[in-house]
């Protein structure tokens, strides 16, 4: 079967004055459909940068990146935005919900940019799936961290993306709430979603089926 993600010799470097600082070196990563991968490594290893490149928030300096069999390396910023909207669901460490919008509005937000008329029922269904259907009209600040992350997961799923990218999704949560969130990810994965998760906690990483370790910008395992 065709891989969801395939990177070939992805390099990324930042220029600091005249100096070029490499962050990623020749990353070759293939993720098959339905995988649940944790991306691990010490801080500065480049795992977040790799995540941003896979999520099309950032561009690689060199190499090619194919998403669902399509080379997306050199597409325009707006094309990347549209792919992010339809193919990628983001879950962030700090939730990144819009503070002035209620739970339902936050989950519906990606529909606003997808250009296709989606049924408003979808957001409600997803909120039910993450156990938040009784909080539809609450503001994020009225919710606990775990509840906010559930809302964020519902938002990530609203356009039915092929991959979910989670950047330290349990980083701001206590371990019990973190476990609950990981159960949701596990369930999503069992339903066929491809999940890539950045974490530095071993017990969180254990929930994934495969662990990719980065060090100094290279994959070491």
């Amino acid at each position, binding site marked *: 079967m065709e891989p969801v993600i395939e990177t070939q010799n992805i390099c990324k470097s930042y220029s600091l004055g005249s100096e070029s600082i490499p962050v990623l070196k020749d990353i070759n990563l293939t993720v098959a459909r339905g995988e649940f991968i944790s991306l691990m490594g010490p801080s500065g290893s480049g795992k977040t940068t790799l995540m*941003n490149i896979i*999520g099309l*928030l*950032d561009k690689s300096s060199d190499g090619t990146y194919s998403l669902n069999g399509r080379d997306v390396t050199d597409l325009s*910023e*707006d094309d990347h*935005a*549209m792919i*992010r*909207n*339809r193919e990628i669901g*983001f879950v*962030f460490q700090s939730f*990144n*919900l*819009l*503070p*002035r919008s209620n739970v339902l509005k936050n989950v519906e*937000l*990606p529909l*606003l*940019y*997808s*250009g296709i008329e989606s049924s408003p029922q979808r957001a409600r269904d997803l909120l039910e799936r993450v156990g938040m259907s009784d909080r539809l009209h609450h503001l994020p600040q009225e919710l606990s961290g775990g509840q906010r992350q559930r809302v964020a997961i519902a*938002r990530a799923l609203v*356009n039915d993306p092929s991959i979910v990218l989670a950047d330290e999704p349990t980083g701001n949560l206590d371990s019990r709430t973190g476990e609950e969130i990981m159960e949701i990810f596990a369930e999503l994965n069992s339903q066929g979603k491809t999940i890539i998760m950045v974490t530095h906690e071993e017990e969180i990483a254990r929930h994934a089926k495969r662990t990719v370790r980065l060090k100094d910008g290279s994959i070491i395992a």
Partner: protein
Amino acid sequence: MRFKKRIALAVENILANRTRSILTSLGIIIGTATVIVVIAIGLGAQEAIARQYSNLSVTSIFINTGPSVVTTRLSAKDADAIMEKSPSTARVAPHLIGRLSASMGTVTAQASIVGATPIYKDVANIELRYGRFFTEEEVEGNDRVVVLGPTVTEDLFGDSESNPVGEFIRINGRNFEVIGAAKFKGGSVGPVSLDESIFMPFTVAQKQVLGASTRVSLNADAKSVDVVGKAVEEITTILRDEHRLPPSVSDDFRVRDMGSNLKSAQQSSHTMTILLTGVAAIVLIVSGIGIMNIMLVSVTERTREIGIRKAIGARRKDILSQFLIEAVLISLFGGIVGVLIGVGTVPLANYASIEAIQSIWGIVLAFLFSILFGVFFGYYPAQKAAKLDAIVALRYE
């Protein structure tokens, strides 16, 4: 994204920051109202000038006895001399003016007595409702006949539209036959309101009513606008000649052409309009900068929100239009309120006896400008928001 949703989103954001939105639109409100009032006042000034000069064509020339030490009074003879010798002058009407009371039975009215020649009817554009103006023969024959202005007719006969022809009125102890009544005109020639005047033959006015000491003025008309200057020169030369003034002595009369008076009045009203419009434009620009300033603050404050929106798929144009629509809605709101205030202020200006005339195009212009400024000054902050890097924006605290 559907347009309706975009508007709803913008309204949501504006309402979320109510105080700031109102403060932003305040500049636009003041600017729009100012433009409307300024245009109304400008139009009012033009209208006032037009009314003041409505009896005068640009070819009119006024000649008065001047403030010289050696003074020969102007006379009907001077008028004849000008007619005879000045090729650029179409006609000259000598007249003298005084204020007296006239009575009809027991009714008395104050009126300006204008002693004139038949040509005065054309020079002052007098239109008759009843009867006729007096003739050259009546002037030469010292006939006691009068033509009444409408206000005088109203004062003496109760109604400005009643026909007084054939009646006799008393002025200075003598009976005068009314031979004509003029229509309403408004406006004045020099200090005299034509509507409040009684017109009579020059000779009678000088000898029997106002007295020989009353100063005579001449109203002349140049043959065309182009020769007004020439006519003024010719008249000056002829009068100096008639009055035998040596070159060392200055004129004992004053010649003014109405064209230049009218032109300078129009010019000053035009200058005033430009000045006021300039002030209004500055107010609008300042309010536009206010919009830009607050939008920039808003963009900075909402950096993280922009990052989130971008991450989940907002394109540049989505962000651009979101901020632009907000700016336009705020200006639109300011424009509408400004129009209401401006339209409400114009009658107040009139109440404070500042002449101001409301015009639709003034309102439309003010309104369009307010929106234009919203777009213009909202664009830069909106573009700044659209260009934000998603990763950087997401990290913004």
